[in-house]
């Protein structure tokens, strides 16, 4: 497959790993921020090939994992309504809310559909004027452009039966929260390449400046990941504190201006709860008040339900890079992908699911 196979070339990957080996002189702890990168690292076994000095800890960059419980409960309540077609990215169906998930809702007669694009949900709204179509708009900056486009499209088509349930989170405030924690041990970051493809990386120099931690924009194929590690280790070893771009074929400093403009037109920054972590100030996006008519939380009377969560699960600490999945006593026993205790086991991008799938 062109543009993919080249970046999985064993000889090239080994060459970069040799370079890392030559460069590293002492232990470094790096965090890959994006769940897609965690998946790539474990799927290809990249961590096994790295010199012992390099420890990779997995960041909170899986949008499914960090979606807060009460929002899942709102989704379940809306999806259970007989007048609703509830559309979601596939991964979200398995995430447990308070005692139920979207699979259960579907099994009990709810019309829950997996879509590949929020624009498919807009088309569904057009085709089903007698139904309310709701899209579960989750994600980081990567999915924000299509999610806001769905609102703009629905507005342009004059649809009165389309709304979105927003659970958008942003990377920079999460990094800020991790670096502000007294227990932080991350010394360098691999930044999420696809987030930066949209947003550019102009948001990161102030963080690098403030916390003195180097960051490297990194892609998702094995060669991209090892290249991102190499560049970060080179900076650490040389005592340089900068933002580097190791994913130049997709990312520019400014990012995609039209996409950012569309996001800013529809969304505004807000405080967000991260599942297993807690509230991080101004870490999310929500709909601007002028788009209230497309806000599913306002359209439907959804009450947040409080739930007692499993005390066994350490997903929160895994999401913050404090622990690894294998540190969890429930891993692979009480907690498996079919019976997930925590969101990191639920999503295929979650660190626990990646470990379970690839490391047994």
């Amino acid at each position, binding site marked *: 497959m062109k543009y993919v196979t080249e970046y999985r070339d064993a000889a090239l990957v080994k060459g970069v790993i040799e370079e890392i080996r030559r460069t590293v002189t002492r232990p470094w702890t790096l965090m890959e921020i994006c769940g897609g990168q965690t998946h790539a690292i474990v799927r290809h076994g990249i961590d*096994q090939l790295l010199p012992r000095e390099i420890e990779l800890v997995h960041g909170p960059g899986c*949008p499914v994992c960090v979606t807060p419980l009460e929002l899942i409960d709102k989704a379940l309540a809306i999806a259970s309504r007989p007048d609703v077609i509830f559309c979601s990215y596939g991964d979200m169906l398995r995430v447990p809310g308070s005692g139920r998930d979207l699979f259960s809702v579907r099994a009990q007669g709810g019309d829950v559909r997996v879509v590949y694009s929020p624009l498919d949900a807009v088309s569904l709204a057009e085709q089903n004027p007698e139904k309310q179509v709701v899209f579960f708009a989750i994600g980081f900056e990567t999915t924000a452009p299509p999610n806001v486009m769905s609102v703009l499209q629905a507005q342009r088509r004059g649809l009165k039966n389309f709304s979105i349930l927003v659970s958008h989170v942003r990377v920079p405030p999460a990094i800020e929260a991790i670096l502000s924690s007294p227990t932080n041990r991350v010394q360098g970051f691999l930044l999420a390449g696809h987030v930066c493809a949209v947003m550019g990386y102009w948001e990161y120099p102030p963080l690098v400046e403030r916390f003195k931690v180097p960051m490297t924009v990194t892609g998702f194929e*094995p060669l991209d990941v090892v290249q991102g590690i190499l560049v970060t280790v080179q900076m650490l070893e040389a005592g340089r504190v900068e933002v580097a771009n190791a994913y130049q074929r997709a990312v520019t400093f400014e990012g995609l201006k039209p996409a950012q403009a569309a996001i800013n037109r529809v969304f505004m920054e807000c405080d967000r709860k991260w599942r297993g*972590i807690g509230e991080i100030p101004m870490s999310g996006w929500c709909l601007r008040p002028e788009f209230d008519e497309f806000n599913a939380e306002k359209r439907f009377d959804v009450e947040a339900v409080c739930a007692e969560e499993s005390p066994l699960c350490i997903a929160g600490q895994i999401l913050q890079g404090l622990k690894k999945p294998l540190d969890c006593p429930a891993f692979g026993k*009480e907690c498996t992908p*079919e019976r997930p205790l925590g969101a990191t086991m639920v*999503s295929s991008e979650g660190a626990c699911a990646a470990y379970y799938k690839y490391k047994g």
Partner: protein
Amino acid sequence: MKDEGGMNIESAVCAPPLPHGEQIVMGHGAGGRMSRRLIEQAFLPAFQNPALSAGNDAALVMPDSRQRLSISTDAHVVSPLFFPGGDIGRLAVCGTVNDVAMLGARPLYLTAGFILEEGLPMATLQRVIESMRLAAEEAGVQIVAGDTKVVQKGKADGLYITTTGVGVVREGVEVGGANARAGDAVILSGTIGDHGIAVLGARGELGFESSIRSDVAPLNHLIEAVLDVCPNVHVLRDPTRGGLATTLNEIALQSNLGILLDEQTLPVHPQVAAACEMLGFDPLYIANEGKLVCMVPREEAEKVLGVMRKTRYGEGAVLIGEVAAEPKGCVLLKTVIGSTRVLDMLAGEMLPRIC
């Protein structure tokens, strides 16, 4: 404890588990671990007998001391009914023919049960029947009995077909998942993921055009060709729902041996690989309907490969790995970049990944 970054580290906890033990959800039918648990917990205890407990796709039964029969049954629900490379009729015949043949048997007779939805066009039914006729002819089996039921509009997806097949197991042949031996070569008959992606594409859910065709085919002639040159085949299995990864995990569990795969050798059609990359699927978990994996003594591998490659449905046969004493009950994959990881079976329903 709350630090200034707003992270509540001490109270970081998650939601309680969802065992889905109270009602059926789609994951129970996906062919992975949830399906396995359903069988183990609901069906096996009720019907307990040696043929069923063997855990193969077909049951080996001996009505008398002279004959060994292979019996299997398979229900077919597919939407849409017609897809590139096949249709529900061809699927219903080939699925059962293949399951019967995977015990080293020659499939002879099929029965078919039809559940028809009110309003189904007669022309559609005729097309499906014609397709079944052609598939049965190709496989060399006769459809000798059947049943028809009609349900109200909206109660079935056009039509469902259940087929049952019977075949005679070749003399001297001992095939089954538990028969794998350490040192066996693992051979795959061709590309993986074609059927699942073709059906997904036909549903119009891919959002782009592709020319991927389902591989649905009767494999009994291929199996006969293999058994002609190597009666000592240990395992034959068609990796249908749950894909190659799930099938190999089942065999690893049945035989209590390890299976080592080489990712580099796995044949995947470029369009299937591209579709999987875009949709967040892994071809190792996608259904096949015209492929088989076989395990044969190492020294017979070249001979078997040579014979398979001369057959219509085995042209793309390759050696993909080997059976080992360790790790027991586990499948390991050597990745393209040279590391090794566990290849697990499918959990529940296969979901596309976000991002």
